[in-house]
């Protein structure tokens, strides 16, 4: 099984390519969204149906594959090689899907979102996307080493080992302009160069898979959809940087990621692609997986290393870089798993190719998780620099139920909220930071006019106060203060001047906190005040125009817009909506409990959240 040199790898890849062209594979999306929609049960039903219909399992295959993206319509399927894309497939469809699709390679029209053009690329959701990191999602079984090899896997390592050498490999990565995908966008090349100048052994390469942002699942999808890309990236990095050990640190809530990575590592080791004398060279490198324990702060680089070392995951003051004194005080390069997955692409295709994708200063693609109030939600990969509006209105298909777009929240708890003007903003590290948000790991939440920026700030600040490690004074003591003021504002007990107070305190938190996460913990407050100050001031006086904060508004039905459909009456839990069938409805302010159900239910936008004092 062991590959003794590059020729053996190439030979095996050729052998795989030569295999029967008559093979057809049904790939079931195994992304987190589809698993939640029951794709595991679907896979079992399909396999059962295939056995029942007597198909040759060598030629008619069924397997899981990485996230296909359009999570909301799951479970999703893709038929290889036809490229037919099916959505919303239930176990009860198994027999038909096996017979028609797998057996005959024909489309099942009722399960296709677009029977005229049954490939997924024809959908607006996929149109603007460029799937590089996700290129194998839908094409391979993530647990199959052969699938990875057959789709170009380990070509990059062979090029690095036998053509480029360490210096050229490092040059490629440095000149590509690749920036860290985990948050700050720090140039990977600078880190790599710093490590080459550092003394000490052993040297480490680490991958951060501790995706802790609420509303983010791209790292998980990568580790589960193409784990060997991360492994190969780390191996190439280790070769260029002279590292002999690597560790992938995975969030504890991701057991499947751990299992897939461990299988990938075992597969690579068995083939001589990890361990001693890789591919017969004198380069030796090995890799293992460490699971987190459930602490958001461990996404911070020094906290992550502390956690691996068997200590509490508290960050330390970083006046000495990890590239000099990182894990166990040895030279260490730590990058997000997505950053590592870019490395094989760059090592094989060169920096010029990479710079041709994305925007100036922001080359390449980025995987985003799109969630919230757009019609389509799911996992998306776009060239950096794509306009936010393209993500929201084309990929996302616009805001659901025809409601009005209000804001995007980008970068999770470290990021910020941006208003409508953000639709014109290019999605890249610099523009988002400039606007007061952050790329973060790539979570994008779309908010409609019923979402309240003060409530969102309270949500994130509450999350951060809960997850603060408690080491430094500003983060430990100021976040609960911010949370309390924000809670007062959303409960109607805010005070005049609270907005200015919050802005001041958050500004000081940003300047004085010990670690990057503590500093960016101010962003949710700062960005919402910057872009939605008026709404904050309204909350000071007890009014929430979004109809989100209970008790801070009264719903008022505009008789001119009401179509007398009665849907508001149906959802009202308090019997506060009055009016008979076919009559325009009214709200009895005294009975209203402020749940906001009517506001959401009205399809004609006839209900406004009014200031209490304005209602008789």
């Amino acid at each position, binding site marked *: 099984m062991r590959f003794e040199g590059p020729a053996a790898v190439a030979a095996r890849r050729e052998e795989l390519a030569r295999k029967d062209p008559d093979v057809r594979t049904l790939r079931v999306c195994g992304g987190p969204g589809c698993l939640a929609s029951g794709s595991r049960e679907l896979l079992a039903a399909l396999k059962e149906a295939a056995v029942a219909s007597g198909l040759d399992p060598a030629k008619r295959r069924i397997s899981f594959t990485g996230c296909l993206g359009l999570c909301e319509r799951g479970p999703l399927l893709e038929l290889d090689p036809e490229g037919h894309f099916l959505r919303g497939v239930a176990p009860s469809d198994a027999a038909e899907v096996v017979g028609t699709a797998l057996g005959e390679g024909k489309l099942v029209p009722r399960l296709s979102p677009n029977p005229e053009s049954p490939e997924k690329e024809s959908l607006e959701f996929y149109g603007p996307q460029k799937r590089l990191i996700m290129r194998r999602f839908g094409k391979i079984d993530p647990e199959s080493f052969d699938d990875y090899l057959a789709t170009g896997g380990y070509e990059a390592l062979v090029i690095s080992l036998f053509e480029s050498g360490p210096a050229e490999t490092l040059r490629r990565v440095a000149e590509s302009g690749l920036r860290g995908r985990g948050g700050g966008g720090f140039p990977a090349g600078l880190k790599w160069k710093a490590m080459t100048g550092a003394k000490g052994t052993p040297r480490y390469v680490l991958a951060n898979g501790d995706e802790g942002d609420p509303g983010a699942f791209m790292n998980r999808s990568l580790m589960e959809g193409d784990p060997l890309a991360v492994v190969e990236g780390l191996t190439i990095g280790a070769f260029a940087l002279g590292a002999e050990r690597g560790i992938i640190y995975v969030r504890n809530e991701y057991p499947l990621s751990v299992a897939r990575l461990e299988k990938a590592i075992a597969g690579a080791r068995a083939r001589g692609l990890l361990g001693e004398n890789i591919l017969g060279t004198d380069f030796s490198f090995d890799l293992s997986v460490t699971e987190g324990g459930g602490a958001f702060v461990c996404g911070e680089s020094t906290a992550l290393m502390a956690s691996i070392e068997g200590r509490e995951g508290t960050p330390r003051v970083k006046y000495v870089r990890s590239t000099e004194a990182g894990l166990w005080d040895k030279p260490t390069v730590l990058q997000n798993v997505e950053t590592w997955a870019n490395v094989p692409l760059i090592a094989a295709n060169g920096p010029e190719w990479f710079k041709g994708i994305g925007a100036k200063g922001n080359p390449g693609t980025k995987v985003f998780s799109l969630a919230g109030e757009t019609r389509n939600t799911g996992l998306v990969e776009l060239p950096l620099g794509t306009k936010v509006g393209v993500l929201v209105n084309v990929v996302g298909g616009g805001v659901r139920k025809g409601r009005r777009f209000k804001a995007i929240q980008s970068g999770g708890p470290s990021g910020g909220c941006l208003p409508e003007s953000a639709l014109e903003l290019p999605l890249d590290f610099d523009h988002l930071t400039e606007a007061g948000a952050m790329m973060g790991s790539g979570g994008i939440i779309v908010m409609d006019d019923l979402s309240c920026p003060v409530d969102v700030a309270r949500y994130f600040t509450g999350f951060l106060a809960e997850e603060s490690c408690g080491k430094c004074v500003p983060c*430990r003591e*100021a976040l609960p203060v911010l949370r309390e003021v924000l809670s007062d504002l959303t409960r109607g007990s805010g005070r005049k001047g609270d907005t200015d107070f919050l802005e001041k305190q958050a500004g000081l938190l940003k300047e*004085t906190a010990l670690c990057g996460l503590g500093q960016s913990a101010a962003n949710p407050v700062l960005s919402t005040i910057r872009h939605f100050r008026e709404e904050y001031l309204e909350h000071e006086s007890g009014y929430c125009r979004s109809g989100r904060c209970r008790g801070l508004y009264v719903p008022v039905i505009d008789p001119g817009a009401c179509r007398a459909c009665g849907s508001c009456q149906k959802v009202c839990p308090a019997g506060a909506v009055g009016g008979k069938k076919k009559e325009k409805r009214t709200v009895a302010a005294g009975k209203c409990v402020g749940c906001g159900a009517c506001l959401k239910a009205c399809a004609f936008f006839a209900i406004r959240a009014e200031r209490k004092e304005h209602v008789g």
Partner: protein
Amino acid sequence: MSGERSGERFRDVLRGTIDGKTVVARRGATVLETAESVGIRIPTLCHREGLPPDGNCRLCVVETKGKLVISCMFPVREDGFAILTQSPGVREARRFVLSLMLNRAPKAPAILKLAGEYGAGADPRFSRDPDNCVRCGRCVRACRANRTEAIALVGRGFERSVSGPFEKPPPDCVGCLSCAFVCPTGNILYSERDGKRRIWDKEFRLVPCPECGTPVFTEEQIRFLGEKASGLCPECGRRRLASALRNAEPLSGGSRGF
């Protein structure tokens, strides 16, 4: 970590300014050390000579290149460094952290004194259950420096507090009082009576010196120190202990509670 690293043994001498005053610094020395060497005082709280720096209180911030850094750990690395220890931004940051600490320890003399200097005040809207501890971890670091490591900062976020394992009397505590000596708010109480010492809900028998009879060490301490402590008279022992603790004189009347 920076202070311990051997890569900074360079003898280079760097020139720069602190508050406009020309200063000579050793490469790799902290800003705090450098400032102190020329008599410029920077307020500190979690920092203590002899204990590894931790940088958690943020009180010793100074400004360089328009950014705030903490002087107890920030190393002087280049010629022409320019540091401000009393800029408006620095003073505001110190006022901020002192106000936050006052929410926890509104009566601690050391903090009140600094708060007065910087115009910081506790906000009654946010101070609840003040327990007089600012979580600086000096006690924990002192205990670790002694290699007893009997107590720790436990829990996270606002709930973090100093504690023995399982919130019980710490089994590894030898009653040496290092923690009480280094506490900046005088929050770690102990008592000595009838040849016994109580701290952390644990009682220790004190061993009198065969020469003069002064009880200095606990039995546990002698057992822990082993050879190092034997055959010493209490005064020698005291000196030995003092050097082991490095500068462990009581702060702000730390021995309350007799």
